[in-house]
């Protein structure tokens, strides 16, 4: 199950909203960083020995 909480219905919408407030660059940086983190988390969940 994957759920998403945000300020618009999709990432493009959130970026558009952020652009209006002048924070699109920061939001893009955060989204990109989180994508990297989620990838590492999922990979870690698959490979970790628990």
């Amino acid at each position, binding site marked *: 199950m994957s759920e*998403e*909480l945000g300020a618009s219905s999709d990432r493009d919408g959130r970026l558009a909203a952020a652009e209006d407030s002048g*924070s699109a660059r*920061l939001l893009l940086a955060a989204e990109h*960083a*989180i994508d990297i983190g989620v990838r590492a988390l999922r990979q870690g*969940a698959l490979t*970790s020995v628990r």
Partner: protein
Amino acid sequence: MIGKGDRDFATHVDLRIESEIRASLGETTPEIPFLGEEEGGREELRGARWVLDPIDGTINFARDSPLCSISLSMVLDASRCWESSMHRFWVSGSSPARGAGAYLNGARISVAEVPALTEAIVEVADFKVGVGSEEENRVHLAVLARLARESLGVRMLGSAALDLAWLAAGRLSATLMLSNLPWDVTAGLLLVREAGGAVFDYDGSPHGADSRYTIASVPSLVGPVRRIVVEAM
């Protein structure tokens, strides 16, 4: 698992996520300092900074529980969380800015309407460990005893960021954390505020970096929840 203290752990995955996110933000926003739970960073309260908990709910993650999250926020100063983005392993989310609202799968969300504590599901954070934990846990146990008498139910999910996101989504009525660590709470507090919830300290003052506790609830329960904590102290 890497021991950090008395029953306090990180996994190699925590360290890898923090390292990779730190590197990414260092490239894309080199002018903004970074504070992470595992490797530290700038902690002073002035100026913008990224605040990251690479895995909030590490013990859950290590035991294969989905109740964990990556929590990333940008904090402008001690009391304002301007831009925030948080994604989760099973529950993920982001909110671009204060005033932008909170959404779940594209639909606007707000905290639940809960008229009385007897109808409230209250989340309580994990017990403290390590130095000084005995006194805090005394308060913690007293809070639980009162909630057992007065609330509909008590939950202990093991992820502070998730607690706050679930409060924003209407799944919980209040969350009580007898602590205030920025990487645990900054992103989730923005979601709660954007969803119409209240965030405050035990004395009723608005929550900020100097707050002793982190208490969040639906507006109608601010008084009852605060009374529970004060009576337990």
